[in-house]
């Protein structure tokens, strides 16, 4: 069999190394991939502009930037570890209890547990400060790092809860059954089967929570903490050194990259067979009355501390104030802006997620690019977008920031800031897509766009809806970019609440803050319904 003789093969140059190198360089470029590249560039541009601006040298920045940077990094790290760790633990435990145990009120709590997501961190922070600081009703004051970590943990755990619920129910059921047949006790099943299998989902949800914490300015500032976020503004506002601010901001962006990397590698090789098998409704563990009450109390506690209590406090303030100043217009503006922003961001996020899934280099880079903005404070992203518009103006492409351009910049900032929040759930939804399905569609002659429209999008449809709802709520809550980039006489609820709160009129701020929550409620409930349904 001469054909087997390697020396007769005519390609001596094709060593494995050179071949591998050649393949790395050759990117598969089709329309969708090109679209993803463009989407990624659009989403990353503001953050990237910040990085470039930060490279401009500045003498003053070095003088105090170093100490600020160090203290900010320590503060952010502590908050990420404790606040983020808390959110992950609370979310995972709640999801497990709801998915695997039977206890009183479980069905209702499964819905309610998601509510804290509708409340912005800064609103929770103001409410808890009002409740527990001097003059408040609580004997324990929530202050400092522990206080802020608590606020983040109870406010952000739903990211993990949502992701883990779906994972526990959908992916792990057969493994859980197997573990049970092997005689594993409930706790064993959780630790050794359910948790490891849900790890990618928990990592994805946890990464969102961690990046929210890193980007948060309002709550950290009100608690008087030095984090990377507050350091950015300290340098920018107090020291009048936008340069140093940008440099600290780029540290924040680097942190985002690290978080993304951790999240991506946590999922790593855990690839799921698409599987047409339906999850069986594994029987739930019947808890003893005491354990059942403990489980119910735990979940109730999360809902109370993450949503009910601070909202009750806000409601009390709003009632004390008694009158609501023309709130309808900001409400309309908020909803309009959130819908438009969510729609645009969703398109970008979908293209990026699909291409990332197809595992091209562009897709992977795109996923990182989209994630960059998520850990950056909105004001920094807005600054980056403004800087790019400034460049465009200097180049003579545009004459200035008209109302239409300001809105464009605002939607752009939203996309840059939140694309990652959309990519994550869509990507999770696409794990249902076995690699073979894309291949099957290709062998049946479907080009990239047709596969996107006919295969990826419909299969990920529930996730797309979920991503859209998350984006809607995120943008509804967004403050700093909205504040700086909106057109004249265009107040949103968040802007209105901020205006009052910054003037220390918490009573007046309560009503718009409460309305942000109420407006986010319906999407959150829809989202829960979707997740719980798909989990069944």
């Amino acid at each position, binding site marked *: *069999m001469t*054909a*087997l*003789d*390697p020396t007769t*093969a*005519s*390609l001596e140059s*094709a060593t*494995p*190394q050179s*071949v*591998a190198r*050649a*393949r790395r360089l*050759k990117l598969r470029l*089709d329309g969708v991939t090109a679209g993803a590249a463009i989407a990624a560039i659009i989403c990353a541009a503001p953050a990237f502009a910040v990085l470039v601006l930060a490279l401009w040298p500045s003498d003053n920045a070095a003088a105090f930037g170093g100490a600020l940077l160090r203290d900010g990094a320590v503060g952010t790290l502590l908050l990420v570890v404790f606040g983020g760790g808390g959110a992950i633990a609370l979310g995972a435990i709640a999801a497990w209890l709801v998915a695997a145990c039977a206890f009183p009120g479980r069905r209702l709590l499964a819905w309610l547990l998601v509510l804290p997501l509708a409340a912005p961190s800064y609103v929770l922070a103001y409410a808890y400060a009002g409740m527990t600081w001097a003059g408040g009703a609580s004997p324990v004051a929530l202050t400092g790092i522990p206080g802020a970590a608590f606020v983040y943990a109870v406010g952000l755990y739903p990211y993990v809860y949502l992701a883990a619920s779906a994972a526990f129910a959908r992916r792990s059921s057969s493994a859980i059954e197997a573990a049970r047949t092997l005689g594993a006790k409930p706790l064993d099943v959780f630790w050794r089967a359910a948790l490891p299998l849900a790890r990618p989902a928990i990592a994805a949800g946890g990464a969102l929570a961690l990046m929210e914490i890193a980007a948060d300015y309002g709550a950290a500032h009100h608690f008087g903490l030095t984090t990377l976020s507050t350091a950015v503004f300290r340098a920018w506002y107090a020291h009048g050194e936008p340069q140093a601010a940008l440099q600290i901001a780029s540290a924040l962006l680097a942190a985002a990259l690290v978080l993304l990397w951790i999240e991506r590698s946590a999922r790593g090789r855990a690839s799921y*067979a*698409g599987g*047409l*098998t*339906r999850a069986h409704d594994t029987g739930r563990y019947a808890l003893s009355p005491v354990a059942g009450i403990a489980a119910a109390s735990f979940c109730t506690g999360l809902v109370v501390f993450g949503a009910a209590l601070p909202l009750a406090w806000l409601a009390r303030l709003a009632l004390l104030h008694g009158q609501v100043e023309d709130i309808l217009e900001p409400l309309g503006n908020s909803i309009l802006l959130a819908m438009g922003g969510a729609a645009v961001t969703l398109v970008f996020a979908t293209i990026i997620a699909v291409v990332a899934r197809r595992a091209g280099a562009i897709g992977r880079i795109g996923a990182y690019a989209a994630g960059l903005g998520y850990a950056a404070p909105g004001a920094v992203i807005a600054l980056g977008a403004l800087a790019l518009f400034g460049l465009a103006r200097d180049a003579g492409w545009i004459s200035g920031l008209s109302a239409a351009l300001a809105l464009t910049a605002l939607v752009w900032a939203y996309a840059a800031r939140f694309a990652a929040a959309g990519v994550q759930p869509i990507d999770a939804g696409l794990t*249902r897509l*076995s690699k*073979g*399905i894309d*291949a*099957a*569609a*290709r*062998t*049946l*002659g*479907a*080009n990239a766009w*047709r596969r996107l429209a*006919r*295969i990826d999008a*419909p*299969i990920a*449809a529930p996730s797309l809806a979920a991503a859209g709802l998350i984006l809607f709520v995120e943008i509804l809550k967004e403050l700093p970019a909205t504040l700086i980039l909106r057109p004249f006489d265009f107040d949103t609820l968040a802007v209105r609440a901020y205006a009052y709160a910054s003037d220390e009129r918490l009573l007046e701020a309560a009503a718009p803050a409460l309305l942000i929550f109420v407006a986010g409620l319906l999407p959150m409930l829809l989202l829960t319904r979707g997740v719980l349904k798909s989990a069944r």
Partner: protein
Amino acid sequence: MSDIVIRDVRRCYGLAHALDGVSFTADAGKVLALLGPSGSGKSTVLRLIAGLEPVDAGSIRVGDELLSSPQHTLPAEARRIGVVFQDYALFPHLTAAENVAFGLAGLPRTEREQSALNWLDRVGLKRRAGAYPHELSGGEQQRVALARALAPTPRAVLLDEPFSGLDSVLRAELRDATLQTLAEAKITTLFVTHDAEDALQAADKLVLLKAGRVLQEAAPRHAYDAPASLEVAAALGPINVFAGRVLNGAAATPFGTVFTPHLPEGAPVQVAVRAEALRLTPGSQARVLSVRPHGAHDLVRIEANGGAWRVLTPARTPLGERVDVTLDPAGAFVFQAD
């Protein structure tokens, strides 16, 4: 219709060669089986032919048309080569009919639906046209996947372990049905399997792969009767292996000699003897250890000269505790040992 010609194809993952200079030809309108153990690279061959991965060296052609070379990879969607995936890869959000119609995008709607139904009918699943994949049994899913691959009238169809997920009864039934469908379609077919029985019964030609190399390319009868290597012999059915040397132009086994005209005198050899090439008669030469039913045969394990051997005899052949053994040279092959 044209042959598919695979020439000197290599494929590396990192530094490892998944395929290392593979060449063979799939004849037009015939069924070719790629047989090999796990990790032999047989599924990779399919993916390369389908255009799902590029080749790192060599070429793949259909007739005169170049499909793959290191510089050029015709995208899968432009190849018109159908694939039935191992897990079927049915689109979970589409019904059986919609799955089959997926590849018929160029046709008007009614024609597309009609064609899809026709194809479902040909695989006997017309009544399940509206069912979603998760509502279908494993066998039904496989048939939908086959109909889907054939519906766009591809130049060839590739099947990746098409029967592996099925129980043995269903398997034989489905294999015959599939082959019949393919024969009616008169389409060039490549299928991958690790099951020798599937390969021997279904294929017009066998390509045996191991560790990324082709061991033999031959018709099933020829491969079975004249294996190119010990590995090929072992891959196609149970064998017994004797080690020895060439003496007087023949290799000795405990049960007789096999002539080796083409091997040098004194060379170390291995003799492969098919289990059915040993004949047992009541006698004294060997001791019977066990007799087990093996389909139409009994698998008899015997002990002789300090070794254990496997023999296939017609079922229920009466044997005593001891037997005599004769060897049919047609079922014995001598290979020079390394």
